[in-house]
């Protein structure tokens, strides 16, 4: 470790606090790193160099007066689905290519209150719909571990940026795996908090009953630090929950004695790579060595229905949420039309990409007269059964452990023409959004030079336990210390 951009948040904080480095130095180093590797990785939609340096100078003045918080002066990349006041927020869509939000998302207000340094906005699948970041309307992001491979998605830009040291950490969003799957593919830590734990105000809506914002970081300690900053009730989001926010760093210890961990068999699915399976088995043995009780026979029998439930519920909600893009108040607007309706149709035809259209069609169909009962209502009933199975499992176990994805990263273009194959890469992550429980992906090995992620699933509003398990595992292994040679 010899470059400033390689620092974690907690390490950077120590050096800033002791004034061994300044925020301007750290920010410049990170911006130079972006300039060095961005042409290969393509993680950023917008880089706000001027804003970042101005913020860094301001933080340095505060630190000189002894005023420092844990995230102060540390550069962060924000997924381009989170509204940033005065900074273009595109959702990697032609529809919002020039949209400049007049307000900040609540998480941005919270980061700014801690004097975080905003580096810019991270690339993603358009409107967070996708698993590879190839559905960005601008350009695909590359996996830093092998540039011919995808970084995962939809938070592929933020995950690839943290992995390649273009940012010290990032914020992503996760509707069916969009933080965890790219974190797994890129060898970084990604947490989807419990639904309601982090405010969604200012997160451009995709599927409102499933979306959550969460951290993408270099290690588990950083993940806990970011959670300390962003978790909590927000009057602007009526689905956020006024449950006390603990200090997430206080639960990080190296001992797992007394914890019961279930391994749900259904997640070791057909089509799973042998290398991923053996990496997970080795990781689980490590958890046992650390003191956890492992039950290899845990079962969540309705897992096989989760993919169908998700791809009915999420597109249904998306079709309603994306109805707002009509070219009137903001966003792309096609004017070559003779009527309001024709202008709306053309605006949406030319403003949305293929995957977004596919999901709007799917969701509109599932909600339409005559099909609502067969699809949407049926899916929501099966969703109840999936939620109940998680509740029952958590009567027996403190956490569940699965692979984050059945395979390591795939090649660019490999699944682009086959939507069902693309959807299957989220088969291990989307049941967690359906149930609304928290889960974290941590680095757990490599197959042929590509990272494997381990997913640790917890009880609602008990992020502490999964972070504790993640931390103990991380401290006993060195996967998270490996960096791609870029």
């Amino acid at each position, binding site marked *: 470790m010899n470059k400033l951009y390689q620092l974690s948040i907690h390490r950077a904080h120590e050096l800033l606090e002791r004034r061994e480095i300044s925020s301007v130095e750290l920010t410049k180093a990170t911006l130079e790193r972006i300039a060095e590797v961005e042409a290969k990785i393509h993680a950023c939609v917008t880089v706000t160099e001027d804003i970042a340096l101005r913020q860094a100078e301001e933080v340095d003045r505060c630190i000189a007066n002894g005023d420092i918080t844990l995230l102060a002066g540390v550069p962060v990349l924000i997924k381009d689905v989170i509204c940033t006041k005065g900074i273009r927020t595109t959702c990697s869509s032609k529809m919002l290519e020039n949209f400049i939000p007049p307000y900040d998302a609540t998480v941005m207000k919270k980061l700014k209150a801690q004097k975080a340094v905003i580096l810019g906005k991270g690339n993603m699948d358009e409107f967070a719909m996708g698993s590879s970041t190839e559905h960005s309307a601008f350009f695909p992001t590359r996996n830093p571990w092998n540039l011919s491979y995808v970084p995962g998605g939809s938070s592929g830009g933020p995950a690839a940026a943290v992995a390649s040291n273009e940012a010290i950490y990032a914020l992503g969003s996760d509707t069916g795996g969009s933080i965890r799957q790219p974190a797994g593919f890129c060898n970084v830590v990604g947490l989807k908090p*419990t639904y309601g734990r982090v405010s969604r105000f200012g997160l451009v809506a995709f599927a409102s009953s499933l979306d959550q914002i969460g951290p993408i970081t270099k290690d588990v300690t950083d993940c806990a630090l970011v959670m300390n900053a962003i978790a909590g009730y927000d009057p602007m989001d009526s689905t956020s929950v006024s449950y006390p926010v603990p200090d997430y760093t206080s639960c990080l210890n190296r001992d797992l004695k007394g914890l019961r961990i279930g391994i749900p068999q259904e997640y070791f699915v057909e089509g799973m790579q042998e290398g991923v399976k053996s990496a997970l088995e080795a990781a689980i043995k490590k958890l046992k060595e650390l003191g956890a009780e492992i039950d290899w026979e845990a079962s969540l029998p309705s897992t096989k229905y989760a993919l169908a439930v998700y791809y009915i519920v999420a597109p249904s909600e998306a079709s309603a949420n994306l109805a707002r893009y009509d070219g009137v108040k903001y966003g792309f607007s096609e004017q070559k039309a003779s009527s309001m309706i024709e202008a709306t149709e053309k605006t949406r035809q030319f403003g949305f990409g293929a995957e977004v259209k596919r999901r709007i069609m799917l969701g509109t169909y599932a909600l*339409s007269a005559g099909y609502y009962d067969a699809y949407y209502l049926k899916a929501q009933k099966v969703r109840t059964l999936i939620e109940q199975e998680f509740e029952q499992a958590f009567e027996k176990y403190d956490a569940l452990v699965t692979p984050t994805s059945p395979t390591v990263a795939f090649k660019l273009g490999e699944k682009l023409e086959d939507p069902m194959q693309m959807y299957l890469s989220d088969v291990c992550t989307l049941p967690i959004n359906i149930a609304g429980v928290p889960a974290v992906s941590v680095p757990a090995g490599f197959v042929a030079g590509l990272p494997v992620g381990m997913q640790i699933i917890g009880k609602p509003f008990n992020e502490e336990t999964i972070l504790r398990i993640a931390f103990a595992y991380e401290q006993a292994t060195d996967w998270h210390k490996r960096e791609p040679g870029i």
Partner: protein
Amino acid sequence: MKLDRKQVEHVAWLARLGLDEAEIEKFTVELSNILENFEILNQVDTADVSPATHAVPLQSVFREDQSSPSYPQSDILTNAPREEENCFKVKPVLE
């Protein structure tokens, strides 16, 4: 469940989503394939199950009705594709 061309056109109309010829053909095939994968849900007995809404047990959330300043009109109109006299301007709605 197989979708035919007419259904695809109807759904696109409901969504106010313009589609070209190639897209209509593509979606007719693709959406049918995806819907076939959903048939697995017919295996599940849900006769006595209530539908979920979302994952947290919150209902009818209220807050105090306090007034606070709104965004300035100029801020909101900044992103408007077309405006006139401080209003959003649209194409004719009535023929």
